[in-house]
C-alpha cells in the first residue's frame, strides 16, 4: 500500500532545509523503442537526480528524447533498463494500484500534445483529476473554475476539446495538470502553442507553484522559459550532455 511508503512522509515544509532530499533519481536509464523490427534508442545511460522543491528544465533538439525522459520520470511508461527511484523507493516495485494512487495524489502532467479527452467537455476534463481524488462535486467545480479563469478558458467550459484552438487546448491541459496542486509537476512544452502573453501566464503559474513547494520539471525549447528554472539538463541524441545551474531567482 502506498501509505506504507515514504510518500506519505513528504513534507512541504522541509523545502528550505539545507539538505534537500532527492525526489527522483535515475540510474543508467535506457529506453529503446521497437517497431517493425527497427530499434530506436531514445535514451541511453541517463543518470539524473531531482531534488524536492527544485525547478528543473530539460532542453534539447527535436527527437533528442525529452518527452521520453519526462514520461519515464512520471512513470507513464516503463524504461527498457535502469532504475527510477521515487523518494528512495524503486518505482518498478509499485503495484498498479499504488501507481494509480500515486498519480492522482502527487503528480501533475502536461502532455506535449495536450491529450484532452475528446468525449468530455473542457470543464469535465479539468475536473477529472479532482474526481479521481474523490472531492465533492461543488468543491471540484469551484477549484476547476478558478484555475480555468486564471488561464482564461473558463468561458469555453461547455465546449469540447475539438472545438478549441491549439493554444486554448494547451491552457486547458495546463489547468487540468495543476488543478490538484500537485507535489510534482511535469510539463512537456506547455507553452509551445501559446502567444507570449499566455505563455507568460503559464510560466507564472509554474513559478508560483514552485514557490509553494511543487517540484517542477519542464521540457522546453525556449531559453527564455528555461530561465525560470534553477537548473537545466541538456539532452542530445538520448544522452545528457550538460547540466548547468541557473541563477536562482
Amino acid at each position, binding site marked *: 500500500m502506498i501509505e506504507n511508503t515514504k510518500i506519505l512522509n513528504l513534507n512541504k515544509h522541509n523545502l528550505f532545509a539545507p539538505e534537500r532530499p532527492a525526489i527522483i533519481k535515475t540510474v543508467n536509464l535506457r529506453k529503446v523503442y521497437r517497431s517493425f523490427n527497427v530499434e530506436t534508442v531514445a535514451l541511453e545511460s541517463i543518470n539524473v537526480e531531482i531534488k524536492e522543491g527544485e525547478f528543473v528544465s530539460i532542453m534539447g533538439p527535436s527527437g533528442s528524447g525529452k518527452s521520453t525522459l519526462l514520461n519515464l520520470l512520471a512513470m507513464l511508461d516503463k524504461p527498457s533498463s535502469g532504475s527510477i527511484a521515487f523518494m528512495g523507493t524503486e518505482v518498478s516495485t509499485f503495484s*498498479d494500484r499504488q501507481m*494509480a494512487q500515486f498519480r492522482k495524489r502527487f503528480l501533475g502532467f502536461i502532455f506535449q500534445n495536450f491529450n484532452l*479527452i475528446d468525449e468530455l467537455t473542457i470543464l469535465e476534463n479539468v475536473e477529472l483529476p479532482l474526481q479521481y481524488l474523490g472531492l465533492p462535486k461543488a468543491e471540484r467545480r469551484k477549484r476547476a473554475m478558478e484555475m480555468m479563469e486564471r488561464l482564461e478558458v473558463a468561458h469555453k467550459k461547455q465546449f469540447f476539446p475539438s472545438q478549441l484552438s491549439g493554444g486554448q487546448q494547451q491552457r486547458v491541459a495546463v489547468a487540468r495538470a495543476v488543478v490538484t496542486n500537485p507535489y510534482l509537476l511535469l510539463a512537456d512544452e506547455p507553452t509551445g502553442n501559446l502567444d507570449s502573453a499566455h505563455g507568460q501566464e503559464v510560466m507564472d503559474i509554474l513559478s508560483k507553484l514552485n514557490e509553494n513547494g511543487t517540484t517542477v520539471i519542464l521540457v522546453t525549447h525556449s531559453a527564455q522559459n528555461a530561465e525560470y528554472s534553477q537548473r537545466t539538463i541538456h539532452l542530445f541524441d538520448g544522452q545528457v550532455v550538460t547540466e548547468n545551474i541557473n541563477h536562482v531567482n
Partner: protein
Amino acid sequence: MLGSYLIITLRNLLRHKTFTFINTLGLAVGIGSFTVLMLLVLHETTYDVQHFNSRRIFRVTQEIKKNNVGERSASLPFPVADQLKKDYPDLIAETVRFFNMQSPAIPVGYKGEYHYEKRFFFVDSTFFKVFRFYLEKGNTKTALALPNSLVISKKIARKYFGDEEPIGKKLTIMVGHEFTVTGVLEESNFRSHLEFDMLASFHSLNEMYKMPVQENWIWNPCWTYVVLHKANMKDELRKQLPFFVVKYFPDALKDFVSLNLQAINDIHLHSNLAYEISINSDIEYVHIFLGMACFLLAIASLNFINIATARSSLRTKEVLVRKIIGANKSELFWQFLFENFLISLFAILLAFVLVEISVPFLSDLSGNPLSKWITNDWNIAAWLGACGLVIGVLSSIYPAFYLANFNASKNFKSAVSFGKSGTWFRQGLVVLQFMISIFMLISTLVSYDQLRFLRQAKLGFDKEQIIVLPIAFTKILYRYDDFKKELLGCPSISSITAMETIIGREHQTHEYAMPYNPDEFTFFPSILVKHDFIKTFNIKLLAGKDFESIKIFKNDGSVYYDYPESYSTDSLTQSGAVIINQAMLKHLGYTKAQDALNQTLISHAGKERIIGVVDNFHFTSLHDTVSPFILNLAKDERRMRLVKYMAVRTQRNRTFEALEYIARTWPEFTAVPFEYFFLHENLDQLYNKEQKLSEISAIFAGIAVFIATMGMFSLTSFVVAQRRREIGIRKSLGSSASALVFLLSKDFMKLAMLSILIACPIAYLGVWTWLGHFPNHVELKLSNFLLASGVILGVTLITVSLHTLRTVLQTPVAAINQQG
C-alpha cells in the same frame, strides 16, 4: 486491378488477424448451422415425393364420432378399397392396402428359430405399381400376386439366410403359416412414411383368416391408399364419399362415420391420427427449424456487418489519406466489397467443412439419419454457397458504402465522429444478436422443462418396475393362466396382468351400448386386459374392485389361482366385467363412482358389468387429454387372442432375478424367442420428438450465443481500440484499473440489459404459444428467464473484462500512442 485488390486485401486481413478470424468463423458457423437446419427442413419436407404419381396418391382415413367419443383412424375396414375401385372406376386407378394384424411385431421363423419382426405388412399386389420401390431380385409384377408370397429387405435376407440365395426360401409366419420369398427389395434412399422390412401378399389372408374379415365393415385395420386418374379428381371423390358411407357401412355406424382423403405428401408432416402406420413428424417442428435457421443466419449476418463496420471505421484515417491523394470513391467501395467478398468465400468453404463433419451425427425428429444424398447434392451446395455469398456481400455493402462515401473535404476530426455515429448502428446490431440468443436460450430451457415434465409427469398409473412381454401369436395366449401361475412362483415378481395394447401409449376402440338402448353402439377408447390390472399398474380405485384373482393355498403348500366368476350377475358364461375411468363415469351421467357399480354396458360379447371405477389416468401420451375409457376383461378365448402383452411387476431391485426366471420359464411355453422391454423406457420414447427438439435447440442456442459472443468480442475490441487514448489519459490522471474496466463494461452491460428487456417478453410469448399446443404442459418458470439473462450478462462481462483489462494494464503512454 484485381491483383492489386487482392494484395491490399490480404495485407489488410492479416493486419487485423483477430477480426478476420472472428469474422470468418462467425459467418462460417452461421452458414453451417443454417445449412444443417435447412437440410433438416428439406429432409422433413420431402417425404413421399419420390413416387411416380405422388400428387395422385391419397390415403383414405376414417372418422367415427358419436356423442363426442370415437376415433380418427388412419386405417379402414377391409372391403373399402375394393368397393371404392368398383364404384368409382372413372376416378380411381389403383388401390393398395396395408395390414399388420394390428400387431406391432409378428413372429417370423426359419428352420424353427423365431424372431419378432416389427416392420411386417400384408400388402395388395398393386403395391409396386403405386409406390416407387424396386426389387433387387424378383419381379415386381408377380412377386406379390400369389398367396403366401413374401418380399423382404436385404437386411432381413441377411438376418435369416446369411449369404444363401433368399429367393424361394420358406419362412414361417405367426407360427404355422409358410411363406415363400419371391423378392428382395432394393435399398432405397427415399424418405417415405411407409417403413417396412417384409411385405406379404394380401391374398394369403384369405387362407389365414377363417372368418370373413374381407367383408367386415366395422373392423378397420387396413391402411388404404388410392391412386386417382388425375390429381384434381380428389374433390370429386371427396364429394362421393358420404354417399359411399351410407351405401355400404352398417346401419349402426353409417350416421357416425365419415371418410376423408389425405394427400400422401401431407402424411409425414400433417397427419396425427390414431393408428398411424409409422411415427410421423410435425409441421410445427419444421417451422421451428426454419425459424432457428433464419435466426442463426441473421445472427451471423449481424455479426458480419458489425465486424465489417468496426473494421472499416478503424480505417477512416487510411481512407481519408487515400482520398486526399486521389483515390476515387467507387474504387474504394469496390475494394472494401472485394475484401468482404473474400471473407465470405473463406467462410462458405469452412461452413461446408463443418457441415460435412457434422452431418453423420445428425438425425431427423423420427430418429432417421439425414440422408446422404442430400449432402451430396451439388445443387444444394451451390444454392447455399450462393446464399452465403449474397449474405457476405449484402452485409458488406453498408460499411463499404459508408466508408467510401464519407467526406474527405472535412478535416480529420470527422473521422472520429464517423466512428461515433457508427456506434449506434453497431450497438443496435449487438442488441439484436443478443435478443436472438436470449430467445433461443429461453426456448431451449423451456423445451427441456417440458420434456422433463412429459417424462416425469404423474400418469395416474405406475410405469416403473414393469417388464412387458410381447405374447402376440404365441401359445402363451392359450396357456396364459398356467404361465402366470408359473411366473408368480418367482418371489421377485409381485404381480402379473396382460393387455391388448401398451398402457400409456395406445389404445383400441371397442363398441359398447347402454342397456336401455342395446342396439345403439358407440365406439369407446378401451382395451382388453387380464386379471390384476389395477393392482399391477397401481391405479387409484374410486369404487369397486380390480379384476381379482384369488390366491388359494393348496394342502401341499403349492399356490393355486382362481378367477372368481362373481362378476357376472346373470349368466355365468355370457357376462363379462369392465372397469371404467372417471371421464367415462361422467359420460354415463353418474356423479358418484359408487352409483355406477353393478350397472351394465353391452358389448358384442354380451353384458359387461361395471365392477370398478378408477381415477383418470393417461392411457395415451400426454399429447392427448384423457377421454372416457373402458378396461374390459378378456375372459373368453376369442378375446384372449387379441391380447398382445403381458405386464410383470417386479419387486424393487429384483428385476434381474425376475427376468432370469421368466427367460427360464418362457421356452417351456412357446417356441417364439423371449423378448421384453421396460414399460418406462417404452413410454419415454413417446417424447422422442420433444427430446430431439430440445437437443437440436440446445445445440443451436449454444451456437447462437457463441456467435453473439464473438460479435460482442469484436465490438469490445473495437471500442477499446477507439478509447485506448482516453484510457491512457484517464490512467495518467490516476484512475485505477478496476474503475476503467467498470467504465468500459458499463456500456456493454447496458446493451445486454436492453436485449434482455426486449427479448424476454417476446420469448415468453413464443414459448407460451408452443406450450399451448400441449394439453399437458409445465408452468413457465421465472428461473428459465433469469438463467438465460444470467448467461448473457455473464458472457458479456467476461468478454468485456478480458478485453479491457489488456489495455487497462498497459502503461498510459503505450495506451495513448498505440494505433488501433
